[in-house]
């Protein structure tokens, strides 16, 4: 009876058998991601067919391309290869970047661009040394001087304006308090310093600049605005618009959310008007109409005029985006700020705007991207942006008939910049995501 009747007893675990071949590795991946259902399979096959067709029609064109033919012209390209003629990009590369800027002065816009990156560094990344912010503050004047040239006194005097205002406010406020009394002293001192800055810019800068320049002519050779072009022009207009539209947009958004009826009406009217018309009409205004609304005899630079209109245009869109961010905040935030006894500006600065701006970062950046793309519209009022330059290059007999290569190059440039901006916004979103969701 003691004999065991069980024939087999497992003494260990059976080793796991490998999964079936179609449930692991690439086969499973393909099955799950490409051929999950019949519809999926059809779509996959169609997509692959499309890609094959695209490659078959575009690849030979790319491979059989000519970069440096013996004769730098379309004819030279055709003699060498039947595909793309990238020689036009090789030959006109610097023109695409600087337009018709004098060749011997290329270093000036290039330096301005390097300084631009340095100036943006402390704004974009917190790890940068704070001292660079001084450069950021004076950068607009530096860049203007580098690109347009002229004597150094003009930009210095313009930068000196706010310094004068600050000095008046700092050292004059006691004097004001003594003369007028404590009630109106501080506010009058503030008004006086702002007025002083404006008066300085309006009446002092030009004559003093002339006098100083005639005495001590330090500076760079002047460059006409009509010579600026290419990506340099796009960057000038784009960066000016981006930098100037953000504060203006914030102000307009606050104005639109304000309880003060007149301020609100003005903001709404401005925003809706600008958003209701295409940028082209505003550029027409810049090119033909703006001079009508300025004192007779005023004639200032077309690029500056375009920058102003582009900034106003972008600011209206920016205002709407930021308003969206402000509106997305729960009411409790306002009520808490009121309960803490914060004033309007304290509440905006410490509670509302930091959160509202954080929420609206993706939209702010996509606004920036839109603005940067819109800079090519200046071709319509005759400025030589990259697209305008492609037309100018085609007007040259040597390159008559080159289309695709030029447009591809311009498109690639914009794609790299805009795609970079959108990736940066994603980085910022991740970095600022401090709430727990």
């Amino acid at each position: 009876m003691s004999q065991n009747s069980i024939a087999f007893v497992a003494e260990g675990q059976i080793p796991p058998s490998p999964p079936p071949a179609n449930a692991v590795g690439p086969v499973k991946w393909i099955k799950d991601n490409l051929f999950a259902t019949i519809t999926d399979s059809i779509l996959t096959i169609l997509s692959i067919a499309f890609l094959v067709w695209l490659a078959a029609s575009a690849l030979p064109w790319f491979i059989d391309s000519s970069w440096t033919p013996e004769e730098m012209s379309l004819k030279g390209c055709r003699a060498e290869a039947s595909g793309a003629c990238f020689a036009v990009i090789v030959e006109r590369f610097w023109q695409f970047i600087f337009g018709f800027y004098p060749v011997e002065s290329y270093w000036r816009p290039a330096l301005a661009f390097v300084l631009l990156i340095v100036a943006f560094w402390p704004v974009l990344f917190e790890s940068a040394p704070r001292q660079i912010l001084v450069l950021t503050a004076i950068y607009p004047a530096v860049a203007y001087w580098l690109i347009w040239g002229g004597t150094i006194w003009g930009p210095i005097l313009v930068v000196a304006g706010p310094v004068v205002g600050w000095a008046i406010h700092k050292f004059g406020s006691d004097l004001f308090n003594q003369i007028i009394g404590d009630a109106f002293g501080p506010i009058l001192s503030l008004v006086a310093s702002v007025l002083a800055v404006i008066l300085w810019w309006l009446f002092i800068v030009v004559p003093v600049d002339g006098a100083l320049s005639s005495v001590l002519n330090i500076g760079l050779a002047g460059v006409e605005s009509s010579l600026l072009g290419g990506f340099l022009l796009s960057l000038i207009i784009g960066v000016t618009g981006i930098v100037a539209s953000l504060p203006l947009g914030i102000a307009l958004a606050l104005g639109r959310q304000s309880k003060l009826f007149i301020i609100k009406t003005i903001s709404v009217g401005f925003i809706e008007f600008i958003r209701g018309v295409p940028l082209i009409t505003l550029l027409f205004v810049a090119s033909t109409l703006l001079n009508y609304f300025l004192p007779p005899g005023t004639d200032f630079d077309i690029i500056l005029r375009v920058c102003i209109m582009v900034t106003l245009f972008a600011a209206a869109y920016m205002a709407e985006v930021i308003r969206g961010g402000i509106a997305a905040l729960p009411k409790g935030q306002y009520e808490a700020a009121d309960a803490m006894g914060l004033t309007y500006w304290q509440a905006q600065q410490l509670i509302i705007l930091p959160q509202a701006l954080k929420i609206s970062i993706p939209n702010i950046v996509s606004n920036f991207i839109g603005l940067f793309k819109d800079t090519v519209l200046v071709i319509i009022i005759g400025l030589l942006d990259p697209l305008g330059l492609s037309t100018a290059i085609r007007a040259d007999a040597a390159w008559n008939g080159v289309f695709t290569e030029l447009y591809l190059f311009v498109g690639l440039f914009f794609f790299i910049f805009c795609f970079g901006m959108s990736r940066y916004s994603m980085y910022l979103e991740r970095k600022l995501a401090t709430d727990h969701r």
Partner: protein
Amino acid sequence: MSVTATAPPPESFRLSQLVYDTRYRGMTIQIVALFALMLAFAWLISNAIANLEALGKDFDFGFLFSTSGYDVNQRLLEYSSQSTHGRAAVMGILNTLVLALVGCITATFLGVLAGVARLSKNWIVSRLMTVYVEAFRNVPVLLWIIIVVAVVNETLPAPREFRGQETGAIIFTNRGFYFPEVLFSRGLGDWDLEGSFIHRRLVFLAVAALVFFMLRGVLINLTKTLFKNVKADSWLASAVQFIVVSIIVSVIFRMMGFQSFEFPPFKISLDLIVIVAVLGTGLFISKKIGAWADAQQASTGSRPNVLWYRLGVVFLPVILVLIVLGFHFGYAELKGFNFRGGTYVRDSFIALWIALSLYTGAFIAEAVRAGIQSVSKGQTEAAFALGIQPGRTMSLVILPQALRVIVPPLISQYLNLTKNSSLAIAVGYMDATGTLGGITLNQTGREMETILLLMAFYLVVSLTISFFMNLYNERTKLKER
């Protein structure tokens, strides 16, 4: 604010309170802002007057009624180079509106398709759609327009290459596309409104209706404040408001001397009127049948099958009318160097249409994707747990919630498309910018007037679209406390 127990005695008011007291500060700021604004406007306007005087120009819209002398290459109404600048502007405006309309429709299709496909589990399809969206979102629309124009002109055959070939119903050439044209062999002809009683009234009524709809919100508020116990948005009140607006408009017309203006020739095809009338009646009866079926279902529980009746009521009369009128297609034929007959659509229009649709479609795709993703997964799971089928889950649970997120950006993309259509000027399509802001501006040299009119046109379009958007938003927004 109501915490203040006692108001300060009036004699204690000091001037400094205007700045430091929150009760008065708002008023001070507003008055200062108003004065600054008025000063700025006065400055701008006085500058403009001085500048115009210095140039010997005046501010006058009379040029709209003088002969234009240029041709508009795509026209939806009668137009020749002998017509007025005003009529040229109308042609341009119609061209803009047509382009915007068809562009919005195709962009929506493309965008919804791409947005859904981008969320697809199919790896290759979602990647392809990502590439499409990123490529179009990060490259200027003007560049796309120019590229598409180049592609259309380079890849399609020229009309002369069709010589000796059998041409189909639709012909694609690099000068444009030819579609069959609708003709009536026993047509009723046109209804010439020129100089008739209705003609002037039609223009007047159109203006009055436009003003009425644009001021609707204001009118309702006004009625509410003036007459406390009147339902301000009822039909009767609306009718009274419309009459009041019409009277005001007619007074303004009279004051501006519109009675003496020559109105442009205006003809309506009687065939079109008859067909639209028959179709409208059919749709109305069909709706009534549907309502009757609903009532039957509600009272008896079983729904009579009325689908065929409804379709028949709509389509049979229309087909009958078409046969009576002798409906047939007219095909384009190659005569000389170009095609004649058929409905001709210019290459620039086609290229703009494609480019704007693709470009705006990429943005709409993002809006659609964001909308669908904004509906939490729990909603789908809850619907499945209730036993609702996937199709109905989409239409009854996901879409209504997603639409709230999708529609506002969708409408603003429509606005963007409309405004981007002004880039037509770069490829020679005569839209409002090309006529009014282009040739008319250059010929008459009246920058101020033409650009103001152009801006006013785009503003009216934008405000009309955002009016409907605000209505929608009001209706669907989540109610907070």
